């Protein structure tokens, strides 16, 4: 385009658009100022620091839309009023304003901006330039992890943002646990609030196609999160999906990747020989002789002590099998991912359509995850000042198939086989109720989840009132889940089938008014929000037990002899239906003075149906200040500093109560059957005490941060310090069971969290053909309980701890108060009463020759002391290598996990197999670490092995090659890259077992709890993955 044609073209376009849209009149008034003022022709050149030209820079007359674009040499020419100001902007450079002052030639030098500061970040109910942000907001570097086999966006977050704590999931497609900064709640929700395209998201992150995500921003401090009020105390994660752009040529993008996965450690059950050998330890009093049981007893025949199912009929020979159950239940996991998207836009419409396909087959057979995802993001501009749009996605997840129980694979005896000689599965190989893990191959398991999301919005730049925008979001989440199951082995081999259907719906209706105005050196953005959310859940569970035939599988539940519909033996409220509603108002003022001084102030009011009767609404205020020091005159000559901002914020955010928590709940059950042949008599039971004064938790926090770019833009970084106090903690306070209840939901005490976060990126090498950039993140948090109930019942002048809840004033929430272990009781040791040979020796603190509750002590904490990550990206010509280390460290006594194992000989354990790496004590292994108790009596107090989980992990490595433009031109492609990447390639840790970081859900004492993934019999492998893939864009 010719330079002189620039303005003309723009004006023509403006007029034609105005005519079409019926705003000709407006445009005429608007543009007449330009047309009829005294114009002069201005020529010039735009260069950067090193005087090299900046092609493509935009030059616009301030206050108008007239302007031009610089050519390849950085030159421009336009017609502008003699007294006007030109605004020059270019990607990666700080915007500059230059007064024309009647000059015909203007040369402009732009300063390179740190990219991250030039970014626009999502701050909730709007966006803001990163340089103007006063709170603690971090953007996730999605590019860094782009080649990793992450089927769940939660995995992208692992270790990438200081202050964001993300774990590791061992399930196909699984969402890892995610939390932000320190734990500021005990019993309340610990989940970060997730917002997708402005709408609160309560579904599973596994439903989202990571390839559809354009950015993820994390709000960490109270001054940022408080705009989400009572739900925001655990931080906010804002996810923005990709969209088309106006006047963008059609773009077709295709990605494909194939991944294989295998365990990171070589943990396995014992083989036949090892299995038979360990019987000698389990029966050492028979297998060995002498007082120290180390002389083998030649008369000992292992067959005599084994289960009858594992020996011949005369019990003299062990069955000859050597079956590897583990090997038969696992195989190399695979992930196939394909995504395709189309995007683009014209004058009036933008579009992005995408489809994704993930087919993951986990390492455990039948741990499967298939996801089909579709997305349509459309926006139309019917009028120049009015945009309407749709952000929508559908996700169809298929997790059919029941995986064999890992615990049962692990404990299965290698002397037994799963199939009989005719190939039929043996349902209960040990003739007990422990099922054959491979029974699951012969059950019907239909496990589907459908997620639908649609946000319809209208975005109006109100005519006549410059700077006023009114936006409406109407976001809808709808989810349906089906889990259907039929097994002929269940129900005591009588057959069992069930159907479980769930539906969930929510809507968010937000009215957002924004007013942006700049006058003089004052820059104001005011935002007001009025919104409401309603959520509804419903579930039906129907089960049949006892089928004469199961030909019709779960579709014939009616023919069962016993039928259960919506049973609720555990009296869980809201198990089958619940609903809740929120309404809220929020006001925010962003004020900037002289492009140097920043102020943000917000106030939010929340009403929530789940709040208790006497506290139905809550108010959350914040204020934050920022100072861009580098813009001050006195910094003009400090060349080492390119950018420097100091900011401080104070805010209050909340953690809301769970629905129904404050009510006295009366649940129903099938109680009794009077008489012979009678029917069910239904009953009711009071499940909880009412608390009409139950309140949300309130976190008040200050955050001080500094953002900087130094050394000619080579070093960028930020430092954060925060200090949070959380009051009115939601807690189920333990009360005497003489009340009939074990606890009451209440607000107690105060928790203090303070922490430090640092993120630094340094361009180590920044040459034309070779770049090396390195990012180091570090974060630490200390947690301390300040007060609890405020009661000093024992009259010692100090407030009492809640010992029965494991909470202690002055300690971290995750402190460990337990018995200290001191090795294993050897054969001839003097033992305290209640402790058999081979059990854990517990330190008798009070030296009264008895282990009692008084012998517990503080052993450490479960949370890490600090976390670190280190990301490197090296590019040489077309080749990019990146690697990422992640680490959680416990310091002296932090990050401890329960890795308790005990061999207790009893009827069931003598049949069970074991993991190869568990070092059990026995007389011939006196240094063994874990107790082996063959006395038949339980130890008085078994003791817990608390072990360090600290680790350093080489989490991601990627090597990619981008095709050169020559090749691309030939095949008319825009960009092509191919890559190979690895995940979890190496982990350095002292932790024994599957993985130091992963948690696995295990069933203990009638409930499911998360345990560290150690030497558990039902632990799950963490997986090492190798991926090859390609990205192609046309």
């Amino acid at each position: 385009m010719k330079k002189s044609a620039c303005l003309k073209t723009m004006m023509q376009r403006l007029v034609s658009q105005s005519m079409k849209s019926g705003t000709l009149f407006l445009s005429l008034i608007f543009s007449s100022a330009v047309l009829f003022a005294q114009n002069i022709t201005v020529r010039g050149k735009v260069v950067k620091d090193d005087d090299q030209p900046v092609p493509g820079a935009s030059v616009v007359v301030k206050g108008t839309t007239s302007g031009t674009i610089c050519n390849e040499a950085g030159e421009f020419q336009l017609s502008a009023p003699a007294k006007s100001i030109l605004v020059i902007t270019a990607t990666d450079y700080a915007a500059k304003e230059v007064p024309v002052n009647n000059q015909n030639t203007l040369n402009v030098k732009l300063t390179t901006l740190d990219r991250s500061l030039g970014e626009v970040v999502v701050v909730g109910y709007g966006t803001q330039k990163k340089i103007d942000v006063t709170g603690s907001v971090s953007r996730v570097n999605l590019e860094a992890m782009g080649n990793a086999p992450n089927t769940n966006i939660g995995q992208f977050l692992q270790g990438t943002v200081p202050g964001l704590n993300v774990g590791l999931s061992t399930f196909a497609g699984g969402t890892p646990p995610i939390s932000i900064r320190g734990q500021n709640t005990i019993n309340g929700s610990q989940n970060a609030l997730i917002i997708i395209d402005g709408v609160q998201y309560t579904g599973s992150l596994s439903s989202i196609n990571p390839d559809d995500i354009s950015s993820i921003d994390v709000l960490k401090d109270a001054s940022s999160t408080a705009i989400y009020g009572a739900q925001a105390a655990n931080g906010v994660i804002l996810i923005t999906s990709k969209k088309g752009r106006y006047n963008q040529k059609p773009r077709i993008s295709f990605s494909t990747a194939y991944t294989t996965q295998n365990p990171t450690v070589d943990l396995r059950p014992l083989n036949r020989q090892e299995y038979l050998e360990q019987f000698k330890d389990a029966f050492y009093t028979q297998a060995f002789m002498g007082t120290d049981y180390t002389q083998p007893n030649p008369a000992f025949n292992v067959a005599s002590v084994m289960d009858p199912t594992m020996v011949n009929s005369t019990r003299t020979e062990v069955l000859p099998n050597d079956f590897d159950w583990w090997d038969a239940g696992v195989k190399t996991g695979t992930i196939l991912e394909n995504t395709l998207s189309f995007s683009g836009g014209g004058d009036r419409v933008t579009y992005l359509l995408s489809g994704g396909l993930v087919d993951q087959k986990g390492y455990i057979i039948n741990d499967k995850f298939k996801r089909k995802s579709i997305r349509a993001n459309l926006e139309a501009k019917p009028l120049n000042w009015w945009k309407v749009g749709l952000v929508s996605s559908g996700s169809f997840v298929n997790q059919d198939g029941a995986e064999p129980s890992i615990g049962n694979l692990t404990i299965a005896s290698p002397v037994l086989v799963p199939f009989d000689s005719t190939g039929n599965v043996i349902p209960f190989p040990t003739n007990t109720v422990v099922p054959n893990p491979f029974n699951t191959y012969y059950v019907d398991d239909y496990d589907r989840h459908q997620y639908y999301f649609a946000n319809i919005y209208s975005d109006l730049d109100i005519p006549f009132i410059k700077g006023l925008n009114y936006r409406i979001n109407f976001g809808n989440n709808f989810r349906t889940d089906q889990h259907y199951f039929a097994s002929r082995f269940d129900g005591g081999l009588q057959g069992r089938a069930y159907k479980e259907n769930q539906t969930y719906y929510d809507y968010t209706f937000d009215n957002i008014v924004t007013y942006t105005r700049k006058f003089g050196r004052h820059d104001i953005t005011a935002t007001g929000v009025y919104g409401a959310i309603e959520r509804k859940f419903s579930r039906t569970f129907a089960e049949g037990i006892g089928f004469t035939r199961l030909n019709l599988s779960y579709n014939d539940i009616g023919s069962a002899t016993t039928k259960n519909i919506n049973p609720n033996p555990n009296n869980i409220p809201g198990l089958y239906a619940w609903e809740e509603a929120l309404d809220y108002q929020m006001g925010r003022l962003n004020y900037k003075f002289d492009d140097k001084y920043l102020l943000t102030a917000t106030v939010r009011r929340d009403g929530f149906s789940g709040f208790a009767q006497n506290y139905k609404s809550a108010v959350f205020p914040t204020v934050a200040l920022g100072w861009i020091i580098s813009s001050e005159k006195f910094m003009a000559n400090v060349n080492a500093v390119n950018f420097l901002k100091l900011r401080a914020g104070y805010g209050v955010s909340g953690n809301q109560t769970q629905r129904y928590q404050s009510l006295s709940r009366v649940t129903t059950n099938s109680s009794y059957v009077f008489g012979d042949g009678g029917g069910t008599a239904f009953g009711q039971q009071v499940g909880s005490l009412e608390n009409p004064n139950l309140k949300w938790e309130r976190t008040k926090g200050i955050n001080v941060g500094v953002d900087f770019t130094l050394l000619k833009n080579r070093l960028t970084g930020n430092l954060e310090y925060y200090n949070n106090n959380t009051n009115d903690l939601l807690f189920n306070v333990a009360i005497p069971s003489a009340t009939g209840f074990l606890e009451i939901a209440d607000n107690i005490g105060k928790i203090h969290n303070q922490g430090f976060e640092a993120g630094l990126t340094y361009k180590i090498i920044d040459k034309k053909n070779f770049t090396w950039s390195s990012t180091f993140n570090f974060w630490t948090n200390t947690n301390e309980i300040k007060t609890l109930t405020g009661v000093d019942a024992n009259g010692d002048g100090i407030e009492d701890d809640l010992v029965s809840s494991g909470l202690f004033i002055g300690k971290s929430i995750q402190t460990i108060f337990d018995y200290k272990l001191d090795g294993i009781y050897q054969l001839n040791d003097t033992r305290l009463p209640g402790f058999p040979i081979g059990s854990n020796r517990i330190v008798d603190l009070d030296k009264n020759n008895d282990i009692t509750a008084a012998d517990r002590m503080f052993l450490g904490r479960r949370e890490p002391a600090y976390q670190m990550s280190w990301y490197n990206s090296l590019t040489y010509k077309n080749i990019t290598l990146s690697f990422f280390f992640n680490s959680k460290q416990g310091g002296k006594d932090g990050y401890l996990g329960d890795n308790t194992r005990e061999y207790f000989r009893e009827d069931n354990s003598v049949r069970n197999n074991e993991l190869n790496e568990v070092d059990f004590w026995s007389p011939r292994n006196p240094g063994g670490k874990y107790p082996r108790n063959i006395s038949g009596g339980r130890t008085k107090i078994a003791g817990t092995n608390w072990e360090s989980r600290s680790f350093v992990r080489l989490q991601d490595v990627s090597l990619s090659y981008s095709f050169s433009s020559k090749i691309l031109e030939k095949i008319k492609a825009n960009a092509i890259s191919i890559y190979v990447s690895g995940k979890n390639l190496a982990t350095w840790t002292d932790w024994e077992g599957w993985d130091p970081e992963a948690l696995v859900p295990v069933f203990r004492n009638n409930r499911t709890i998360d345990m560290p993934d150690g030497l558990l019999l039902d632990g799950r492998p963490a997986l090492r993955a190798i991926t090859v893939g390609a990205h192609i864009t046309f």
Partner: protein
Amino acid sequence: MDETPIDFLSSKNAFQTAADFNASVNNLYRLVRAEFYTENDNNPMEYQYRTDIAFYVPAAFPANLSGEISPTSGIMERHWRALYKIVSEANTIISRIPASQLSESDQTLFEARGRFFRAFAYRALAYIWGGVPLVTAEVTEPKVDYVRASRKEVYTQVIEDLTFAVTNLPGITTVKLDGEISNLAAQHLLAEIYLADGQFQNAITAATAVIDDPATDLMKLRFGTRKNENPGDVYWDLFRRGNQNRKGGNTEAIWVIQIEADVPGGAATTATSFASGDGFSLERVHAPLIRDLTINNISAFRWPTSDYTGGRGVGFWAPSKWFIDSVYASDPVNDIRNANHNFVRKFKSNNPASPYYNTEIDFHNLPAGTKGTSGAVLTSGVPSRAFYPYQTKCTDPGNHPANLYSGAYPMALKGGAGFTYQDQYLIRLAETYLLRAEAYLGAGNAAAAADDINVVRSRSGAASITSADVSIDYILDERIRELGTEEKRLLTLMRLGKWYDRIVKCNPFYASAADPKYNLWPIPQSEIERNRGAKLEQNTGYQ
């Protein structure tokens, strides 16, 4: 912003009508059944383990009593909580009556029911722990400063509640449903609590009201579903499936805990395994693990089989030698309670592969080469996991629910068997006689005591005794003979303060570890810590 739950009730609207109160009462039956019968494999059996009649076979010798009966032991905690939950739900019923829409007569009826269950739970609490916190009204806000009432005060409360129940509960023939509590059940408990409180004359009066009621009588002739089968007798008939409720013609039952297979609320599934806890595991726990018995390395038994080998026993709950031999020594032959079909000591081999097929293997006279679990050589007359005498009360030979047969061979059971499927006597008239005998003895009337004991003995064909024979130990032995595996033995021994004496006398498995302090259990440590507003004193000897 009002919150209205949609899948449960709130206590504000759950106590209005008779249907509401009935639902709460139904739940009390459930809670009692769970605590004493069906909660899981272990808890209900704790009322038998560590007593003079039973021991937990797989456990170490000597028994680890200091570990099992300690403030931190989960055993104490579970029973304490379960019993107080019964108190709490009963209190809620009583406290909600005034504000309800119940008719006047219903108000009295539900109060009587509430008080009955409250008394039932406090009776157990006071026997096991002595004085405990006395909570007699619904708790609506947290309270953390309980102190212990004296045992006497608890007894007084129980007496008051039961007296109200005796007056206001319907008679045993007027209750509408089988298994419902009646004024006679209350009278029986009243007699027992009077005994505990040393009020012997009142105990006699209360027991007499039960015994003299025209609707009650010991069963003396064969009856019920299997009355024509042999071997068998009236004592055997008492424990067959379908014979416990009055509708089946049983006049001896005072309070029968209802068990119904495969109906929600019936607490007896044939479908899921014993591990689910949805059933009464007495068969599984009490019958020996006969599977493991070999003679010359050949299994003598096919297991599990629905015959006199005990169904699907796993051999945890073995009778003490005292129970097996000593208590029957005076009259081993005539006493039908000691007949082999009631107390199996001779097991007929049912394995065609064994040379002993169809012959009886006698616990007291084992063939050479008999081995048990883990190949251990067995000794005649010494209980082991694989082999000990068991009472057929715990099962119903040849009469398991149809779903439980696997078809592998005649009478073969599925691996998921192991529950006891017949209704259970919580109170039976024979026990009322023995309570009255205890009361007469306490009141100094040994002759009347002997008469009552002889009523029970003569029904079983056992020789009569004279007043010279009567002592508290004799009555305890008679209770074993009549109520073995049926009564909650721990409660009886602790009520009498006889736990330590009887353990030392009758059960060598525990004797060397026994200590008089175990006459009362320790208050759970967790309860002491939860009660942070006041000190809940621990029982003597524990810390």
